[in-house]
């Protein structure tokens, strides 16, 4: 299966389920030089505009962008822009999660079914998500239904693949235990394979969450009339770069926050996986 790439520099949170084995907090590595570099770059940027060295419509000063962010903070401002996007993202993600976990459990547990279904799924996985939009427009129109569907399709795959890997990673000893106690098939699936798969499922969901946000923006850029993606493209056409950059910065911040929130949720729900790791370390 496709191993998801780590999505946090320095702490390998999403390379499979053993992420909790990696140590490394953000604080450990923050040193003066790094922060100083960021500050220096920002100052350089600001100066490049103020001094007139870079005279371009599309290159606004940092302060201008910050002002643009600030003025937008009202219900009619960023609230409207992001509100509908987040709603669609959430809807698409939840659909993807339900479908991905259910399908992943079934395909992970049955070699035959996975042989039948995987080639078909592969085709849709390798098709770039923007390319799914125009065909679906003809079938679903340009409203929320279209966007949520595209988001769900894109977010479906990381969860599916990770769930399959998780099911297949169930400890063989656990399965033997189930056999010696003559535990029925359904109980094995829900009581052993599903919990074993949970660390993988969480990793897949986290990746999918980030992907859902991205694809939300993409669909709004292609077929939008509202939302962040549409806003960014509109600002591009209207030659209002500071508003455009402002939206991008806020979008990144939201993505970052969602990721951290999900990590916290993961940590709380997988206490037993932590315990297991602690036990293994102390042997």
């Amino acid at each position: 299966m496709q191993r998801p790439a780590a999505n946090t520099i320095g702490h390998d949170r999403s390379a499979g389920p053993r992420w909790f084995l990696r140590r490394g907090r953000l604080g450990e590595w923050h040193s003066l030089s790094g922060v100083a570099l960021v500050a220096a770059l920002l100052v350089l940027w600001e100066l490049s505009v103020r001094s007139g060295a870079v005279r371009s419509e599309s290159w606004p000063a940092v302060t201008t962008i910050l002002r643009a962010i600030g003025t937008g903070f009202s219900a009619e401002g960023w609230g409207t822009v992001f509100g509908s996007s987040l709603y669609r993202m959430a809807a698409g993600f939840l659909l993807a999660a339900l479908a991905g976990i259910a399908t992943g459990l079934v395909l992970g547990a049955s070699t035959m079914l996975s042989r039948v279904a995987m080639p078909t799924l592969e085709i849709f996985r390798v098709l770039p998500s923007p390319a799914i939009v125009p065909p679906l427009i003809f079938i679903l129109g340009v409203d929320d239904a279209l966007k949520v569907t595209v988001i769900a399709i894109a977010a479906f795959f990381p969860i599916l693949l990770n769930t399959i890997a998780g099911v297949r990673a169930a400890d063989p000893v656990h399965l033997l235990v189930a056999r010696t106690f003559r535990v029925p098939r359904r109980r094995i699936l829900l009581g052993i394979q599903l919990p074993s798969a949970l660390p993988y499922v969480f990793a897949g969901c986290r990746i999918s969450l980030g992907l859902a946000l991205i694809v939300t923006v993409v669909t709004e850029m292609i077929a939008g009339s509202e939302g962040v993606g549409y806003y960014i493209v509109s600002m591009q056409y209207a030659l209002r770069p500071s508003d455009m950059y402002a939206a991008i910065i806020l979008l990144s911040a939201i993505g970052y926050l969602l990721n951290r929130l999900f990590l916290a949720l993961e940590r709380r729900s997988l206490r037993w996986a932590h315990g297991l790791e602690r036990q293994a370390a102390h042997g």
Partner: protein
Amino acid sequence: MSAVPAAFRHRAAALAPGLAFIASWIAVLEVAARYGWMNRIFSPFPSAIAARLADVVASPEFPQALGATVGMLAVGYLLACTAGVLLGLGMGYHRPTYALLEPTLELLRPIPKPALLPPLILLLGLGAPMKIAIVFLGALFPVLINTIQGVRTVDPVLVDVARTFRQGTLKTVFRMILPASLPMILAGMRVSLGLGLILVTLSEMLTGSQGLGAQLVDAQRAFRVQDMYAWTVVLALLGLALALSFDALERRLIFWSSRR
């Protein structure tokens, strides 16, 4: 005596149920369209798509579009991989470099790369430089992050062994750490490839200039629906070809790794 080697036959047998399934739903779509259960004009109509596909592939636009897409993708992707691996090796191996660059990169990483498309269009225009830039930016991070992680997880014993042979930093890094981190690096490169294809397609769709994405949108706007589906199929096949090639490459490069 069969001229087909056993390994091939084994893999073909494994694929058979999947291919049969694909054939069956294509057949269902065909029947549904023919008997009017689905709208013949707007829904995928396999026989029509196949016909249009043949025409599309034979047309002069095809090699141009394919070349444009693959070209932009290749340039941006290879640049990103090179930069990502080199930077990642440096950051993974050399703590001060990591400390210096990590905050900056950590700030840039969460930016959804498609959102950078409009700024890049404003800054670089609609042509090749913009497309290469967006592919580069998108493909850089997965490779970079995975390289750093790959370096980090190399068995420290191996590194010490290299040190006792007085290998010198450059040699240690390239001869020892790079091959050891290869599985993780390749995993990142695989993600980057998919991301790159998405970004180049998106940029073509939004700018309507050259490439497969542009052709797709073109067909859509002109209501040449089955043409549009044909271009979708082309993109799917391209995605598949890239994925399979990457698989083959990975298999050859890390045949030794147990982690697959």
